[in-house]
């Protein structure tokens, strides 16, 4: 749903209502230790101050009109961000968000409401609102609640709230000093740090429940450099579910080196001549192509509605045999990893394209029921204010039989892509774009001058058939990607080995 205008806020623009992916801002950490699972009340509480029978009572209201299924999603999120500009940490933003969402499902239809007030009466009122998606009367049978154990893809014990703010300041200050020392042409540098502690508790009308802690952090370095009267900008960022210790000397070194290199590289950059040409996708960030070209189109809600370009291709060959594409929620500490999805579905590694053949959609509970298959653990939501939808986690292509050098050598005239800022897709027509921030011309099998700020556009299924070489150097990108769909943002990861696409339309001069 489009964002409502706010008379006091910045001007409202009409955005395209399509799915997009970008390195958009997130915020992140905590001021005080959260006390979610142990509120001091008389009866034994399970989570957020409520006991099993309270939860059952709310679920009873939710299904009171004849809904098939209901769940309650409790969330407490605390975030902190620090911004350094002009050698000063002169801006901080801290936020605290608390609430519970009530969802009622009837067939393919969803009723949804939430309460930001943590008392039983208010939550029951939200449940009654959500219940109205069904219009009958029912006396629901509720199963006893069991709390499921979770796997461990990231730490559930670490709390950013436990890290002294001075340590965070020290990190930001250190990155800034290193940026400035790295190259005398840097005239402006800025560093942003963000962390989030998110506590969630989910309980369903089928008796399933889980509690999770979902940490997230991100560190950005941005530079403006000046040389002979010409200015250029660039940057780099690292995001992870690992704790604060992700930012060790190696990571800080990489952040600084890459931010500066990508900035000063631009002094030599040219705008290529536009048109259709071979494109080599560098390992790592190029996974953005998978996210846009196939990932969104495989989200089963679009296919259930028959609105995806992939709706009639299941089980059919879509790419060469050495192309296998997965969406994986289980990578250790990855930004896109989840222990369990936001409706209790087990996280897994789902194979979208298996040896060139389309093999599975990305499902949430509703779409899995529609297709009569098991959910794939892709049911995610931005927060307690949002309904669950099929969403990606970490999307990447497995390594293939070719070598990076061999791929670049095979191109007479084309573009080598290194880093990107954002992408977008039209699910139905299959047209997708991704925006190149840094790359190189390829001339006679060798990398030439750098290129920058160019949009690439292609058609998903057509581009898949044009992937003609896949190298053995898979890399998962460490950047903080955020995926947007129907107004909801969720953190994701992506990865890629070096890949050759025979032809794609590159923006540029006429």
């Amino acid at each position, binding site marked *: 749903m489009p964002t409502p205008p706010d008379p006091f806020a910045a001007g409202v623009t009409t955005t395209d209502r399509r799915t997009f992916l970008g390195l958009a801002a997130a915020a992140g950490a905590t001021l005080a230790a959260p006390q979610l699972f142990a509120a001091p009340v008389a009866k034994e509480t399970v989570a957020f101050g409520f006991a099993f029978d309270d939860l059952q009572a709310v679920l009873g209201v939710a299904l009171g009109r004849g809904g098939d299924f209901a769940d309650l999603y409790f969330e407490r999120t605390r975030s902190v961000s*620090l911004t350094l500009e002009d050698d000063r940490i002169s801006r901080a933003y801290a936020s605290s968000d608390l609430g519970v969402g009530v969802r009622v499902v009837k067939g393919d239809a969803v009723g949804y409401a939430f309460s930001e007030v943590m008392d039983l009466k208010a939550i029951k009122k939200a449940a009654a609102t959500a219940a109205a998606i069904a219009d009958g009367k029912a006396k629901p049978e509720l199963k006893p609640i069991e709390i499921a154990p979770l796997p461990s893809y990231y730490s559930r014990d670490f709390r950013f709230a436990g890290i002294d703010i001075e340590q965070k300041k020290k990190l930001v200050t250190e990155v800034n000093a290193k940026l400035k020392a790295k190259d005398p042409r840097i005239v402006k540098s800025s560093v942003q740090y963000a962390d989030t502690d998110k506590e969630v508790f989910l309980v369903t009308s089928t008796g399933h429940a889980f509690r999770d802690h979902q940490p997230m952090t991100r560190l950005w370095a941005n530079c403006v450099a000046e040389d002979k009267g010409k200015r250029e900008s660039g940057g780099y960022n690292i995001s992870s579910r690992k704790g604060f210790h992700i930012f060790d000397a190696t990571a800080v070194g990489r952040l600084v080196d890459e931010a500066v290199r990508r900035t000063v590289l631009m002094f030599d950059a040219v705008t290529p001549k536009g048109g259709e040409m071979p494109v080599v996708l560098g390992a790592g960030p190029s996974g953005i192509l998978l996210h846009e070209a196939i990932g969104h189109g495989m989200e089963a809600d679009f296919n259930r509605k028959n609105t995806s370009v992939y709706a009639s291709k299941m089980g059919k060959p879509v790419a060469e045999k050495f192309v296998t594409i997965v969406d994986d929620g289980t990578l250790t500490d990855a930004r896109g990893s989840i222990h369990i999805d936001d409706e209790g579905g087990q996280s897994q590694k789902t194979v979208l394209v298996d040896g060139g053949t389309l093999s599975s959609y990305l499902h949430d509970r509703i779409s899995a029921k529609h297709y009569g298959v098991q959910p794939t653990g892709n049911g995610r939501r931005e927060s307690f204010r949002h309904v669950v939808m099929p969403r990606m986690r970490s999307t990447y292509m497995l390594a293939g039989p070719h070598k990076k050098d061999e791929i670049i050598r095979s191109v007479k005239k084309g573009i080598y892509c290194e880093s990107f800022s954002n992408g977008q897709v039209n699910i139905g027509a299959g047209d997708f774009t991704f925006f190149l921030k840094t790359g190189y011309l390829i001339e006679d099998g060798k990398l030439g001058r750098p290129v920058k700020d160019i949009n690439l556009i292609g058609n998903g299924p057509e581009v898949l058939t044009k992937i003609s070489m896949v190298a053995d150097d898979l890399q998962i990108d460490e950047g903080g990607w955020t995926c947007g769909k129907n107004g909801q943002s969720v953190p994701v990861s992506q990865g890629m080995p070096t890949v050759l696409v025979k032809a794609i*339309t590159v923006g540029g001069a006429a």
Partner: protein
Amino acid sequence: MNPLQASLDTAEAAVAELKKLGAQDALVRYRSARGVQCQVRDGRMEKLQESVTAELTVHVYADGRYAAHTTNDLRKAELASFLADAVKLTRMLDPDPARSLPPKELVLQKPTELGLFDPAYAKIDTDARKRLAQTAEAAGKTDKRVVSATADFSDEHGTTALVGSNGTHGAQRDTWYSLSAEVTVAEGDKRPEDWWVSTSRSVKGLGDAEAVGKQAMQRALDRVGAAKLKSAETTLVIENRSAGRLLSYWLQALFGANLQQKRSFLDGMVGKQVGPAKLFQLDDNPALVGGLGSRSFDREGLVAKPLPIVDADGVLRNYFIDWYNAQRLKVQPTTGSWSNLVLNPGSEPLDKLLAGVDTGILVTSFIGGNSNSLTGDFSLGIQGRVIDKGKLGAPVGEMNLSGNHKTFWNKLAAVGNDPYLYSSLRVPSLRFDGTAVSGA
């Protein structure tokens, strides 16, 4: 109690508490809102959501330092510890002499009536919402090639109070409605899609619900058979629905934060020509009655005033400079962002603009792409229709428009009389000559 007074009380209490905790200054914003979203597909309701929210944001100025903090947990004890933590965190940052609140004479104490609130809001119930969405959805699937039509009726009613220790004091109610439709049609394995939306501050302003569905369907049908053209230098007519997006990238270079961080290609351009005279004239007008971006005062509490951006001679007159960046840049503040940004309309409707084009492309939407506010380079995916001897022809897709803002806006050759009213960027259809597009 009057909801405006209740909101003001909440904000005032937080300002007083922050001062007691040792903050020298504080600006507090409190917003509460209720929104409903009703989505219809296959004639029945597929999603019904009600959102009731309340949020307090405090801007704290303590010992020459600044931080902002937001919470929705307004229980007494939790709020007290939140405010105490807010002051504590602020004090741990580095001092910044540019951090202050604007003086009392620049901030407003009483909002003006701008028609932001629709008294009919209370009368809209779920059935009315469902009926409007059903009407739009039904109108969007009358052609047998339609595989899916979805219509969405969303609304919000909110109250915002802004109170500052510098004398900022005001509260306003607002409403917002949107009726949209998305239609997908069959073309072999492909499912071309398009959408239409009507947005207004009053439910009456939404207009005909059927028209929303029909527009979305016609636009989706118009996408059938889309193909890319050869790369070329050609004339582009950018339809009003999309022209605002292109302009929004140019506007990024006007923001104080980008100027201060040396990330603006318009740095040093005030007083100089940035576009063709009589065509590229821009004004920010916060006082349009019922405007989607209308406001009495901005985020920092600065009184909203009409602001010329580019005058009739195509000369840049003003940047968007908030109070903080004005202090850093040592210039006068204007306002931190646009309200209703108006590109002065011309006299011709879209079909007249098209009639003057021998060969070209009508751009109906952009897909993806980005822009660099420092260098002015931009590159965007485009889709639309061929223009052949003044008439619309085959659909076009999978192409890119690339250029540099510093030269691109000089190619503006004609401006339509049709400003897009469903956005705070009121931009008409625009014709550009000699632009580079890449395709096959």
